[in-house]
């Protein structure tokens, strides 16, 4: 268990460092921080509020599930992660739907590349686990569910982003 915890923490630290470099690569000006204009900042403020409500709601539901001792084929930590992903999904969905899907300094092409690489990296453990038959251990799904949850979120974000981009291109033609 200690080895698993050490690997998990090390993985998180490496990921945090990687994210800094990835963001530097993804932004046109080489900065880590994405720049937003005043309307985008206001919309993001609202999005964070709704994401917070969604996260609180999810945590209460999960707490209730754990308190009642309901037997689910999901490890407790994976269940908690679903709440986090739900909050992230609300944040992304609200931002995209209110035209805040790109920051001022984002390089769209590079972001799409990062999306694809992240999808492959998340799909890999799920596919490998499915092939080896290790997705569910002792009747419960654990770590692979984290990857599945991220994949679901990315799919939802990608579909919404695609629909919104199409709508935006149409609007751009008529408005100009």
């Amino acid at each position, binding site marked *: 268990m200690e080895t698993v915890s050490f690997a998990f923490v090390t993985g998180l630290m490496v990921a945090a460092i990687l994210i800094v470099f990835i963001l530097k690569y993804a932004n046109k000006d080489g900065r880590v921080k994405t720049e937003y204009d*005043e309307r985008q900042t206001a919309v993001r403020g609202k999005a964070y509020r709704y994401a917070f409500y969604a996260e609180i709601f999810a945590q209460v539901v999960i707490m209730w599930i754990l308190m009642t001792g309901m037997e689910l084929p999901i490890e407790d930590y994976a269940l908690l992660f679903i709440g986090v992903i739900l909050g992230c999904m609300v944040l992304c969905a609200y931002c995209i739907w209110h035209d805040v899907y790109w920051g001022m300094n984002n390089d769209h092409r590079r972001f799409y590349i990062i999306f694809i690489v992240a999808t492959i990296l998340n799909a890999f453990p799920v596919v490998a686990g499915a092939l080896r038959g290790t997705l569910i251990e002792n009747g419960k799904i654990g770590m692979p569910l984290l990857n599945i949850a991220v994949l679901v979120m990315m799919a939802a974000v990608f579909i919404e982003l695609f629909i919104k981009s199409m709508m935006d291109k149409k609007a751009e033609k008529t408005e100009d």
Partner: protein
Amino acid sequence: MKNLKLKSARAAYDLSQEELAVKCGVSRQTISAIEKGDYNPSINLCIAICRALGKTLNDIFWEENEQD
């Protein structure tokens, strides 16, 4: 309420929403939202838009009442 003055001033300069957005340092969607009346810009952004279009705040953002 739609900001038709902004749209016509932009059209007079033959600027697209994207081009005006770049001049003002905002996103195209923000210019679109202002023109559609979905977003009330800050005074700083109003000034930036006016400077980009060579207009005054009155020209673009002042709404005349019927009584005036």
